[in-house]
């Protein structure tokens, strides 16, 4: 079970609270987790990754285990502690703008 924390605006959009728990099978990568997340919550499509390019939106960041994973390959395995459900994958709205 993969734990995911959404930023407040996306929690509101998806009408969820607290952490999400996603059933992800296979090699757990950032891309796979986001694919599962968007399949389960289709209203999130385009809000984390650009709809056309599939790239992370500029002001969205990914953190886990006190590391910034934003610029890691989307196909790189996520840290073991995320895969084991011991730590959440944090999807964060960057502190930008005013």
């Amino acid at each position, binding site marked *: 079970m993969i734990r995911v924390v959404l930023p407040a*605006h996306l929690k509101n*959009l998806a009408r969820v609270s607290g952490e999400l728990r996603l059933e992800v099978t296979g090699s757990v990568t950032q891309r796979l987790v986001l694919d599962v997340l968007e399949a389960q919550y*289709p209203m999130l499509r*385009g809000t*984390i990754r650009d709809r056309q390019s599939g790239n992370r939106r500029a002001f*969205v960041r990914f953190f886990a285990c006190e590391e910034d994973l934003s610029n890691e390959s989307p196909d790189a395995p996520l840290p073991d502690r995320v895969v084991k459900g011991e730590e959440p994958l944090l999807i964060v709205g960057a502190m*930008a703008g005013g």
Partner: protein
Amino acid sequence: MSGVRVLVGTRKGAFIVTSTGKRKNWKVSGPHFGGWEIYHVNGSPADPDRLFASQSSGWFGQVIQRSDDGGKTWEPAGNEFAYEGEVGDHLWYDGKPRPWEFKRIWHFEPSPDDPDTVYAGAEDAAIFRSTDGAKTWQELPGLRTHESGPRWQPGAGGMCLHTIILDPVNKDRMFVAISAAGVFRTDDAGTSWQPINQGLRSEGIPDPNADVGHCVHRIALHPSRPDVLFMQKHWDVMRSDNAGESWREISGDLPTDFGFPIAVHAHEPETIYVVPIKSDSEHYVPEGKLRVYRSRTGGDEWEPLTTGLPQANCYHNVLRDAMAVDSLDPCGIYFGTSGGQVYGSADGGDTWAPIVRDLPAVLSVEVQALP
């Protein structure tokens, strides 16, 4: 009519303001989608309880919301706006080519007949249509791929398609306006488009007959006379009596002819409204006075409407999509300011009062007369 519903988009959410047909006491609902920019909320004339809202943010991109109960509840709708075929380039601010890139939806224009059909104007400029109630969107690519497209450049607010007018008589005719390309018309339901900008004069454009490159802020028409168009250009208020084939200036005795919105009275096709703004470098009303100007002669001769509006120390702007008229009699007029007020007049502009105040900066105002 039992009432009116004013749909307000702001920098930080949507608000719905309702009243009876007397338009005296107002009830405010919102913020809906708090914290998000709401560029536009508009309702279907065919089913007034069906609303479409453009919700966007610099962080999370474009979301489309739909309500089927007049804004009490909302559901996310389709937000995939894919340009058809080869995307191509337009001109960037530096004069270099830059590929079209979708940024946001500025404006919805629902079909007058079918609640499932709605048009959407995008930045970077393109027109999309949904025929399934905003679940999916298809571009009408003949506009973006017009031969002049590679010469279109963004205005300061982006290269946005901000105005869509569906001709109420000729169902194959539509008008759109793009900053800073100009006005375009289709006579074949959106398959092909032609620029209709002859007669526009824009300082800084060397060729006075340039077919594109004009910073048109807003166009409007009266449904009884769809060949008569009114325009607030960056500078200049303009009029066309031949569906845009040619334009002439009607700024007349306005104190300044810079501005954003323009609207036509619901029952008097020669009565039009603008809000003069000091200049393109000072985006606020002149002399600290918030004045709507009304012409009852189709332009050239204008009168200031001030009763109930602040006449000292007011430095607000009124954006292009932030003025609307209702269809009651007398006609109601509404506009929203960058200072968060929405003013209404239930007597054609003679007197005004805030229907809500101290909202976030207002981006758009629409009004529905409810049965």
